[in-house]
């Protein structure tokens, strides 16, 4: 039950002078239980692509197979609940979606919509509140009394609380301080290890290198490359041509001109190890 995109295209404001291709003939396949990263510039089509995963946007042409549902240009807005229960999206700055009286009620909103009874929804909300690192006491408070970082956690708990098989996240750690960022990423990594598929839209190449096992590179609505992080970050010239950043570790390694690396280091630990091997 993998995710398949077949020749998917999408056009913004069709039939107007401002018509613009959002996606241009995109085809790929993602494995179940994988951790995928989508990278590319602002405006490259990353967010457009992401909104196709749960049919918030329908393709203009092409076909998407995901979580047992087939999405085509003819798909209507009816009966998408089942799809959205299995495939969920977390938008950038998701704390703006909070609205309930209490934190716990807000987390339980999704589960209730997807058919959990009241008791079970709240139970799940309590569980995920703890999972995102917030205390039980916070559950009773109004979400609008919390700090920005706490609100972010609540919003993310609200999506994880119905345990979608496929979790898509758009820059979930943007604006968080480093410690919170680390915790957040670890949470998604654990979620993937528990057997779910994670799709991460991000600019942070260190996160890509550290967590992803598959990378999609978007440019002007086209998918220009799909590969493992090791392969993607191997070709420095190609990255520069496409104005993509590199992980800090490989950038540092490149500056050590008289060192020989058996493998391009993508994180600090392998970088340090390679340096030490060279110095031995």
């Amino acid at each position, binding site marked *: 039950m993998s995710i398949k995109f077949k020749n998917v295209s999408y056009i913004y404001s069709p039939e107007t002078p401002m018509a613009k291709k959002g996606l241009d003939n995109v085809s790929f396949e993602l494995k179940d239980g994988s951790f995928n990263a989508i990278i590319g510039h602002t405006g490259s089509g990353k967010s457009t692509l992401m909104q196709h995963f749960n049919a918030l946007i329908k393709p203009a042409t092409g076909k998407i197979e995901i979580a047992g549902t087939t999405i085509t240009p003819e798909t209507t807005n009816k009966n998408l*609940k089942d799809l959205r229960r299995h495939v969920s999206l977390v938008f950038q700055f998701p704390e*703006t979606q909070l*609205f309930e009286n209490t934190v716990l009620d807000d987390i339980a909103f999704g589960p209730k*919509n997807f058919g959990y009874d009241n008791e079970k929804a709240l139970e799940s909300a309590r569980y995920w509140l703890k999972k995102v690192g917030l205390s039980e006491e916070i559950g009773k408070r109004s979400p*609008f009394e919390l700090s920005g970082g706490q609100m972010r956690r609540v919003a993310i708990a609200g999506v994880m609380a119905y345990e979608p098989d496929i979790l898509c996240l758009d820059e979930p750690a943007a604006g968080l301080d480093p410690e919170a960022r680390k915790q957040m990423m670890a949470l998604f990594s654990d979620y993937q290890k528990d057997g779910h598929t994670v799709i991460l839209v991000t600019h942070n190449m260190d996160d890509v290198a550290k967590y992803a096992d598959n990378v999609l590179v978007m440019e002007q609505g086209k998918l220009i490359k799909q590969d493992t992080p090791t392969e993607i970050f191997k070709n420095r010239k190609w990255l520069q041509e496409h104005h993509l950043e590199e992980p800090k570790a490989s950038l540092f390694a490149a500056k050590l001109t008289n060192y020989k690396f058996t493998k391009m280091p993508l994180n600090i630990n392998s970088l340090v190890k390679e340096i030490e091997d060279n110095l031995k």
Partner: protein
Amino acid sequence: LIGRYVAGDSIVYRMDPRGKLLATILFILFVFLANNPISYIIVTIFSLAAVAATKLKPKIFWDGVKPLIWLILFTSFLQLFFTVGGTVYWRWTIFALSSYGITNAIFIFIRFTVIILISTVMTVTTKPLEIADAIEWLLKPLKLIRIPVDKIALVMSIALRFVPTLFDETFKIMNAQRSRGADFNNGGLVTRAKAITPLLVPLFINSLETAIDLSTAMESRGYRGDKGRTKFRVLKWSNVDFINLFYFVLLLGLLLVFRTH
């Protein structure tokens, strides 16, 4: 993106928005004067000439009329049966089809159409921002009766500035809640009424935060009310504007001459 403005270049585009707004408002008032076939023909010719002067494709104006065409036709049709006078062709209880009814229905149809055409000329050839400037200028005399025109202008410019931003925000929040299983299109009336809250509360909170941020930014950029402020954007009257106003004086004159007294 949002709004009806269409980029173009013609004499109408070069007119001062104040002149255009004034003309639009006057035109609507002048139409009240039309009351016989000749005056309605004059009004129609004037508005078609204004449309032609924009040098835009007729489709743009058709798009302005289209959404309302059924309403216009239906209303004109109903009107057929409510006017009594002249030759009566058919009668049933309070309903009657008469020659007066027919002319009346045609007059109403024309009124509807010319008013929409003229306001479309205004909105497709003038940027919303310019219209707002023109409105502010028109409101100025209200200062004499101590209405806070400068504050109204501030509110107006902020509203105009934030319509596109909030529009995007609305869609973003809608999509986020849809992802969480909210349903805006299904269920009974109460369910749908209730479904507004997950959209509205975030929008409201967002508005509060924007207001705090924006007012802080304005103050730190030295904003302290309208006193002693200068203006970067200035409007200028030119010859076309006098021609424009003359055109409408001419319309007034013709209507006064040719309407039935």
